[in-house]
């Protein structure tokens, strides 16, 4: 187990370097970021040159990358064009997005798995068909439509919520955005759980458990659910990273100043430091989440062993 974890951690290093290098190159291909800083006019060449020097943009890309990576390991992610250190941007953006992600994941787990179990146990019944139809609708409607619609109905027409989230972005305000963000994944979780439960319901160990005379809820939670959760856990695990990075649409609609907003601004202003910094952290989140998922397998199914 310990060796497995170490091996996995070591594997992260090339992935990490490769991912950051790719992002670095991609942002740099877009051209000179200073050009966009002066609005609809040309920056005067002397100031532009001076700015390039300050941000290290006058050096060749490979050298910029090495300097950047060197700084990253000391915790210095550089400075955004508005003079703020990127770490400062991160310290305001990540907590907000993490809260939003937690809300979304909680929705996925609670609603998704519950619906999945209910429909999986009652396959073919009206409840099952109803939920299947519903998930189909949710999957096929784009997030921005759901988001704008809920914002308009709940926020403007009925006045139940504020249409925009304040800069504090507390949990209470994030419930509706979290639900919107979770909606598509939630439908997938429901379907995954349903299929998995329906399949395992007929397996030998469930029949044995029932034959032993165990109470139904114990059969379902201890035997059936635990074994059926493996694909679901995989999905939710990888979804953590996807939700954090992919919240751009939701964050824009509900005015949430999180990672998506900063990334969007960074790309628009072609701010290499911001984009690379945020993506680097997101890559790390992805990698760690994947590792945790793999480790969770062993907990759910003791037959799985790591050497």
């Amino acid at each position, binding site marked *: 187990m310990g060796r497995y974890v170490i091996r996995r951690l070591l594997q992260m290093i090339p992935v990490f370097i490769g991912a950051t290098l790719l992002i670095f190159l991609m942002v740099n291909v*877009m*051209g*000179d*970021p200073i*050009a*966009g*800083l*002066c*609005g*609809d*006019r*040309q*920056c*005067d*060449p*002397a*100031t532009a*040159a*001076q*700015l390039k020097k300050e941000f290290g943009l006058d050096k060749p890309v490979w050298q910029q990358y090495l300097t950047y990576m060197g700084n990253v390991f000391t915790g210095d992610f550089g400075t955004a*064009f*508005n*003079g703020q250190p990127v770490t400062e*941007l991160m310290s*305001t953006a990540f907590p907000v997005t993490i809260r939003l992600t937690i809300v979304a994941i909680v929705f996925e787990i609670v609603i998704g798995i519950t619906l999945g179990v209910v429909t999986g146990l009652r396959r073919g019944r009206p409840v099952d068909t109803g939920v299947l139809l519903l998930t189909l609708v949710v999957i096929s409607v784009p997030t921005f439509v759901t988001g704008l619609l809920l*914002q308009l109905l709940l*926020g*403007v027409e009925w*006045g*139940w*919520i*504020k*249409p*925009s*989230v*304040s*800069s*504090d*972005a*507390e*949990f*209470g*305000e994030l*419930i*509706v955005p979290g639900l919107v963000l979770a909606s598509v994944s939630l439908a997938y979780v429901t379907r995954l759980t349903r299929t998995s439960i329906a399949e395992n319901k007929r397996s030998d160990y469930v029949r044995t458990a029932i034959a032993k005379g165990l109470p139904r809820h114990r059969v379902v939670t201890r035997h059936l659910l635990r074994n059926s959760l493996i694909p679901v856990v995989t999905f939710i695990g990888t979804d953590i990273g996807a939700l954090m990075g992919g919240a751009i649409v939701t*964050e*824009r*609609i*509900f*005015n*949430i*100043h999180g990672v998506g*907003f*900063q990334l*969007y*601004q960074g*790309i*628009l*202003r*072609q701010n290499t430091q911001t984009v690379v910094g945020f993506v680097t952290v997101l890559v790390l989140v992805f990698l760690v989440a994947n590792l945790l998922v793999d480790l969770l397998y062993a907990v759910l199914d003791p037959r799985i062993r790591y050497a």
Partner: protein
Amino acid sequence: MRGATHAKWVACAAAAALTATACGSGGSDSGSGDGGTVLSSSWGDPQNPLEPANTNEVQGGKVLDMVFRSLKRYNPETGAAEDMLAEKIDTTDSQNFTITVKDGWTFSNGEKVTAKSFVDAWNYGASLKNNQKNAYFFEYIDGYTATHPAEGGKQTADTLSGLKVVNDKTFTVKLTQKFSTFPDTLGYPAFAPLPQSFFSDHAGWLEKPVGNGPYTIASYTKGSQMELKKWADYPGEDKAQNGGVTLKVYTDNNTAYTDLMAGNLDLVDDVPAAQLKNVKNDLGDRYLNTPAGIIQTLAFPFYDKKWNTTGSDKVRTGLSRAIDREQITDTIFQKTRTPATDWTSPVLGEEGGFKAGLCGDACDYDPAAAKKLIQEGGGLPGGQVKISYNADTGSHKQWVDAVCNSINNALDNDKACVGNPVGTFADFRNQITDRKMSGPFRAGWQMDYPLIQNFLQPLYYTNASSNDGKWSNKDFDTLVNQANAETDTAKAVETFQKAEEVLRDNMAAIPLWYQNGSAGYSERLSNVKLNPFSVPVYNEIKVS
């Protein structure tokens, strides 16, 4: 503590699900207690640090307009440059100026505003090592090249030799050339005075800028919100009529508009294009649509031989005549743009140099004439024009496609014109500075100060800072020089208009339309208006 937070969350969840209660802090909206009520307004994250000489976009400029007052101020209605802190600005030769600062002005930290406050600030702005993006505003002052050498040069001075403090109240400015309208440029935010704390504790000042305007900054959370309070001891006459303004950063102007509709926001100063159709129904009288000093044009790459042949002026004029400006401004912009008939802006007024119809026939839609002109001029270079624009911000795609449609229809050729989107604004600017444009491209111009000079010289003078098409014409340059040397304003304006006629005869850039500022506000507000820079006149807004 932990338990309490959880309990609050649960309570909030329940409340949000059941009732209208929102659990945010929401405290910023409530009254400030001292002197009037606070209003909230939409804002965008400023792109650059908030320093007067470093702010070149509207969002940062908005704040500077609230916390700074300069020697001159542009009248929010007429746009005329009026004395603010300047008691008098004297000159005999349009090149040497003696500026006297009024008594009784202080910064909000109590420090007196003196001649030195201006001289220090201008020196700071002009010095290359401070990376100020508006440094070129000081380029006419003597000694600029020493403090701000051209690229590759070494900076030999920290201060402008053309600036001299005479005494507490007076300083002199020596320019490198005659520039009769120089005093009128002094209302631009880059010329604002700065307190000593700006120089002694720069980082601290940037966290919470201190100025001498009707508002002071109470708190500033970068990227999300700024709270401005009325400065009770403000010595000027244009005191704030409200208790303060909370500027909230929005990720999307559609969300800001939704918030206005839901009653969470008082003022939106940029009505999203998608809402223009509904805005009259939604807001009625509370929707403003007033002219601003912005003109959209199509510029041409004169560095490309194809666009610089004899007769190519006929092709350009032909293209201009093939664009149905009226229809495009009506259908796409819902009349928030006005078809352009000269190269300036209506906000200048007739005295200031705006001359409706100066473009004449060349800006009238006439497909037949367009076709004929283009044929006479040798046809479209390469048989097709590609109009470049940046696709990331604004709704440029829509109007470029419409312009192309109009041209295609006029020429009976489906392929005469196509749009050429560029991914990001930075890349778009890149291609322009690298002279990589192969056809016409969009060129927007927002004035720095309401002078006809500002609409012509930076854009069309040989090698001027924003002459993106690299157009060059001796007659035009001569007329601009003459106009600048003229001490009589009316005559100067007249000469500038002559220069504009040269522009027309060569069709150096196709004027498309004048842009309006648009804003919407809640029922709580009254006396809302937009100044010629399309920024709300915050200090005059009344809150009930």
